[in-house]
C-alpha cells in the first residue's frame, strides 16, 4: 500500500486491502480546490492562516491545499506537520508509534490554524491534535479540514471543511490519498 511505504516504523494495525474505489484522483483534486475556496471565503482572505497537516495521512493534503490557496490568492501560506502520538489517550491500550517528528514553522499565537487530515472518524486524533497544538502558542481560532468524513464520532468534534461525506460501517477501513479514496479492510498479519 502506497500510504505505508513512507513509514519510519512498521505499520501497526495490519495492511490495507482495498475493495471499492470511491473517489479517483480528479475527484480528490476538485474537492481540494473547492475546500481551498471555502477556506479563503470563511477567513476573508488568508491573513494569519497556517495549515497544519496531521502525520502522516494529512500532510500531503495540507501541501495540496496550500498549493491551491497560492493559486487562488497568490500568497504563500505556512504549512506545518503535527504528530499526535504523544497526546493520544490510548497509548497504553494499543500500540501507538509516532509517524514522524512534528515541525511547526511559525509561532501559532494569534493565527488561524487549519488542521488538515485525510479521514475524520472517531475524532480522537483531532482531540489529541488540539492538545498538541496548544504547545506551539495560543491560536486565535482552529478550523478542521478533512478530505473524508466517515462518521462514527466518539467526541463532540465537527469539521469546518469536508471533501466528501462517506458513510461507512465501523469495521471497514478507508484509505485516502491524493490518488483517490478506497474502501476496504485492514488485514493483520
Amino acid at each position, binding site marked *: 500500500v502506497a500510504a505505508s511505504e513512507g513509514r519510519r516504523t512498521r505499520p501497526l494495525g495490519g495492511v490495507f486491502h482495498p475493495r471499492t474505489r470511491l473517489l479517483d484522483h480528479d475527484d480528490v483534486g476538485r474537492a481540494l480546490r473547492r475546500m481551498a475556496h471555502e477556506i479563503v471565503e470563511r477567513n476573508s482572505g488568508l491573513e494569519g492562516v497556517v495549515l497544519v497537516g496531521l502525520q502522516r495521512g494529512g500532510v500531503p493534503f495540507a501541501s495540496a491545499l496550500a498549493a491551491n490557496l497560492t493559486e487562488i490568492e497568490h500568497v504563500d501560506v505556512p504549512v506545518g506537520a503535527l504528530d499526535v502520538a504523544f497526546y493520544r489517550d490510548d497509548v497504553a491500550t494499543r500500540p501507538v508509534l509516532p509517524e514522524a*517528528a512534528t515541525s511547526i514553522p511559525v509561532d501559532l499565537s494569534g493565527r488561524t490554524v487549519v488542521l488538515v487530515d485525510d479521514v475524520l472518524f472517531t475524532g480522537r486524533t483531532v482531540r489529541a491534535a488540539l492538545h498538541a497544538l496548544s504547545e506551539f502558542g495560543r491560536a486565535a481560532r482552529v478550523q478542521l479540514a478533512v478530505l473524508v468524513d466517515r462518521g462514527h464520532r466518539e467526541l463532540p468534534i465537527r469539521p469546518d471543511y469536508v471533501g466528501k461525506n462517506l458513510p461507512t460501517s465501523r469495521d471497514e477501513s478507508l484509505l485516502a490519498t491524493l490518488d483517490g479514496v478506497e474502501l476496504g479492510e485492514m488485514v493483520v498479519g
Partner: protein
Amino acid sequence: MTPADSLLGQDLLSVSQLSKEGIVEVLEVAEAFAEVSRRSVPKVPTLRGKQVTTLFFEESTRTRLSFETAARRLSADVASLAVAQSSVQKGESLRDTVETVEALGADVLIVRHRASGAPAQVAQWVRRARVVNAGDGWHEHPTQALLDAFSVRAAVSDARGHSSEGSGASVFEGLRVLIVGDVRHSRVARSEVLAYTALGARVTLCAPGSLLPRDAQDWPVDIAPVLDDALGETDVVSLLRLQTERGSGSHVPTLAEYTATHGLTERRAALLKPDTVITHPGPMARGVEIASSVADAQNALIVRQVENGVAVRMAILFLVLGGEPTLLEPAP
C-alpha cells in the same frame, strides 16, 4: 531467543533482544522525542499517571538524572529509591525490595546493580511492571549503547548532508567503529558491540591485553594491536572510562602508561580523518583516556550524547510501556 523487531511492551535488559529493525525503531521514535526536547516547554502528557521508579544499587547520579528527566518530560511520576538510606542497608533482600517498590505502584523499574544479571532477575520477580536495565556489572548498559548509536547516526547523517530521521540503519552500512579502552570491565562496550554490529557497522577493539575480555576472539569484532595504526581508518572512536572501581587499576601499571599507549592524545587525534566522530559515555577522565582539548573539539559528541540520552530514554520508556502488540486495532 530470536531478537525482536519491536520493544513495544517489552522489558529492556540487553541489546541482544533487539533485531536491527528493533534498534532502528528506538532510534526513529527518539527522533520524535528529540523534537519535543527542542521545544520551549519540552514536555508531553504521554505517560500521565504512570510511575517510573529508579532503583540504583550502584550510584550513578548522571544516568539516574537522565532517566528521571526523560520520565518527567513524559509527564510520568518519578520515584527514586535511595539505596544508601533504605532498608537494603538493613539487610532487605533484592526480591523484597522489588516487591515493595512494585506494591507502591511502579509501572517501570529502572535498575542499576553491580551484579551482572540482576535486572533480568528482577524482571522475573515483578508481576506487572516493566524493567529497564540501567547497567549491570560487567554485563550490559543497553540505553547507553542506543543513545551512542543515535548520536553517531545524527552526526554522520549531518556530515553527509541528509536528515537522520527516517534514515534507518543506512549510515551504519560499512561504518568503522573503534572501541578503545577498558573493554573487559565495560558494560558499555558489550552493549555497543551488539548494537553497532546489529546495525551493520564493523567494530574493532583496541585495549591493553590485560583489559581485553578473555573471550574477545569469539566476539564479532576485529582486534587492533596498536592504536596509532587503527585511528586513520575509523569513522567513529568510542572511548571507554578506566573502571578503577571495578579493578581495572590493577590491570595497567600506571594511568600515565595507559595514556601513553591508549589515550586519545592531541597527537593521536591528528591521525583521525577530519570527519571521524568521538564518543565517550562519561564521566570522562580528562588527561587519561582523552586529552582535554580533544574532548572539547567539534567532532567530540560527548555533550550531545548527554542531550540525546534524554530523548532516547524517553523513547525507551514510551516503548516499554506501549500497548500490547497483539491488540491490533485499525488506525482510523
